[in-house]
C-alpha cells in the first residue's frame, strides 16, 4: 500500500445495532484515494452494514464518524450522499426489472441531468433533449466497455443473473463515481463471469482511479485485485493491511479456520 496517498474516506469508531443485535462495534479504517479496499469476513460479519452506513442508509451511532470530501456522512440522507458521487453495486439483484438495459444505465445518470418536469414534457423544444443526447454518448461507451451491446434494449427483468449483475455495475459507473461501493459483485457467478467482472473492476480502477470499497467472499479474487484489506468478524475489525499481511495474519487464519471447522 502506498502510504503517501491521501485518505478518501475516514471511518472512525462506527457502531451500529439492530435492537439487541450489534452489527458493528467501533470499526475504524481509512480508504485511500484511488485504492481498492476489500472488506472480508464470514456471513453476518457486518460487511453490508458497513457499506450501508457509508451510503447513509443505516444510521451509525453518532459517536462515530465517516468523513468523505470534508463532509460528515452520518446524518446525511442517502440520496444526498449520492450527490457526492458515491455509487453502489448491490448484493443480490437490485436492478430495475421493468426497464431496458439502456434505461437502467440512463437512470444512473439521473443526478447529472439538470432539467425539470416542464422541460421533460416539451422534450423537443427544451434542454432535456440536448442533455439526454450528450449523456447518451457516455452511456454507450459504458455499454461497449461492459460488452452488453447485445442486450441494450432487452428488459433487465428477463436477463440471466450474471448479466443483471453487469447491468447493476454499469448503472453504478453511469453515476461517474468518485467512490464506488461494491457489495459482492461476483457472488453466484461462474468462473468466466467472475474473471470478466474482476477485469472490469481493475480497468475502471486503472483508467479512472476511482476509489473502491469491495465486499467479496472469493479470497482468490480479493487477493488478486485488492490493494488493502479490512477483515470483520462479528462486527469487529480483526485485521487491516495489505493482502500479504492479511494472508499471514494468525488472527485471520484462526477466524477463517474456526469458520470452516464449524
Amino acid at each position: 500500500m502506498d502510504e503517501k496517498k491521501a485518505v478518501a474516506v475516514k471511518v472512525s469508531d462506527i457502531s451500529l445495532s439492530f435492537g439487541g443485535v450489534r452489527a458493528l462495534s467501533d470499526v475504524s479504517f481509512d480508504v485511500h484515494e484511488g485504492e481498492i479496499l476489500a472488506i472480508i469476513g464470514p456471513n453476518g460479519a457486518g460487511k453490508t452494514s458497513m457499506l450501508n452506513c457509508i451510503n447513509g442508509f443505516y444510521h451509525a451511532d453518532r459517536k462515530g464518524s465517516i468523513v468523505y470530501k470534508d463532509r460528515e456522512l452520518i446524518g446525511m440522507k442517502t440520496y444526498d450522499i449520492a450527490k457526492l458521487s458515491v455509487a453502489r453495486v448491490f448484493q443480490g439483484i437490485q436492478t430495475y426489472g421493468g426497464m431496458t438495459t439502456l434505461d437502467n444505465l440512463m437512470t444512473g445518470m439521473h443526478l447529472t441531468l439538470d432539467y425539470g418536469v416542464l422541460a421533460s414534457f416539451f422534450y423537443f423544444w427544451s434542454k432535456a433533449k440536448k442533455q439526454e443526447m450528450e449523456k447518451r454518448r457516455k452511456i454507450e461507451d459504458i455499454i461497449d466497455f461492459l460488452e452488453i451491446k447485445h442486450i441494450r434494449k432487452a428488459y433487465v427483468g428477463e436477463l440471466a443473473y450474471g448479466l443483471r449483475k453487469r447491468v447493476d455495475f454499469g448503472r453504478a459507473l453511469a453515476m461517474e463515481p468518485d467512490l464506488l461501493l461494491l457489495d459482492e459483485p461476483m457472488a453466484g457467478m461462474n468462473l468466466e463471469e467472475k474473471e470478466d467482472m474482476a477485469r472490469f473492476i481493475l480497468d475502471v480502477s486503472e483508467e479512472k482511479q476511482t476509489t473502491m470499497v469491495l465486499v467479496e467472499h472469493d479470497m482468490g479474487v480479493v487477493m488478486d485485485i485488492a490493494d488493502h484489506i479490512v477483515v470483520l468478524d462479528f462486527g469487529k475489525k480483526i485485521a487491516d493491511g495489505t493482502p500479504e499481511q492479511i494472508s499471514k495474519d494468525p488472527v485471520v487464519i484462526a477466524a477463517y479456520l474456526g469458520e470452516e471447522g464449524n
Partner: protein
Amino acid sequence: MYKKPCGVFDETYEQDSALVRTGYRWLMLVLLLACLFGVLPLFAGNYFMDAMINIAIMVIAALGLQIIIGFTGQVSLGHAAFMAVGAYTSAMLSTHLGMSFWIAMPLAALFAGLLGILIAMPALRIRGFYVAVTTLAAHYIIMWLILHGGNLTKGVSGMTAGEIRIGSFAFDNELKFYYLAMLFAATAVFLTSNMMRTKIGRAMIAVRDNDLAAEFMGINVFKTKVTAFFLSSLYAGVAGSLLAHYQGIITVDQFTLMDSIWMLAMLIIGGATITGAIMGVVFLKILQQVVLFGAPMIGHVFPIFAGSAVAAFMQIFFGAVIILFLIFEPRGLFHRWQITLSTFRLWPFPY
C-alpha cells in the same frame, strides 16, 4: 425484447430514442390520425361521436392514473374523486363567476393536482398500501363535500357548466366537441410520451421497480412520488373539466368508487404503458357497448336475466374479463400486441 425489422439500424442516438422510429410506423401514425380527424367524422353519427368523445376524455384520465399506478407503482383509488374535483371546480368557476373554459380548466386542473398531493403526501412517505387507503377515504370525503356544498355545488340536482367557445365559435355539437376532445387526448399522449423518455419518467419507473436502489442512485423517492401524484390528479382534473363542459351538467353519481375501479381495470387490461392505457380504455368501452346491446337480447331469450339482472350481468361479465386477463395476460393487451407485431415485422427473416 423489442426488435426492429432487419435493415433498420439506428444511425444516431437521436433517431434511436425517437418516439416513432421506422417509416412504416410513421405511415401508420399518419393514417391513424387521418382516420380519427378526417375520415371518421364524415361517416359517424352522433351516437358514435359521443362514444368517441367519452373515450378521448377517459384516455386523458387513464393516462393520469397510469402515471401513478403503472409507472410509479402507487395504487390510488381516488381517481374518480379527483376527476370530480376538476369537473366541479371548472363548472363552478364557469357558472358562478362566468369564467371561460380556457381559464377555468387550467385552474381546475391545478386545484385537483394540488389537492391530490395535499391528500396523498403523508401516505407517500411510507411504503405499502397507505396510499390506497388514504385515497379511498379521500374519495368519500370529497363526494360528501360536493353533495353537501349547498348552492355552491348544487348538491343532488347537479352543477351546470358553460359551453366551450373560442371567440364567437362554440363547441356546441358532438362533431365540434369531438375534434376538441381528440386534440386534448392526442396532446396528453404526446406530452406523456415525452416525459417517459426523460429522467422524470425513468425516475418514476425506478421508484416502482426498486425504490431502494433508486434512493442510492440519488433519486429523491418521495419527491418523485409527489410529482407523479400531482400529475396524476392534474390529468384527472383536465378530464373532469372537459366532461363537465361537454355535458353541460354534472352530477355526483358520475364519479363513484366503481369508476375509479373501472379505470384501474382498464390499466390492468391494457398493461403498464401509454399505449396500454389507450388500449385498455378502448377495449373496455367496446365491451361496454357489446354488453349494452347484448344483454337485452339475452334477456329476451332467458327471461330470468331480464331487467335489473342486466346490470348484475354486466358486473359479472367485466369481472370475469379482468380475472382472465390477470391469469393469462398479466402484462396487458399492449404486450400481446407487440409480440404479434414483432413476429409480423420480422417475418420472414427473423434477424
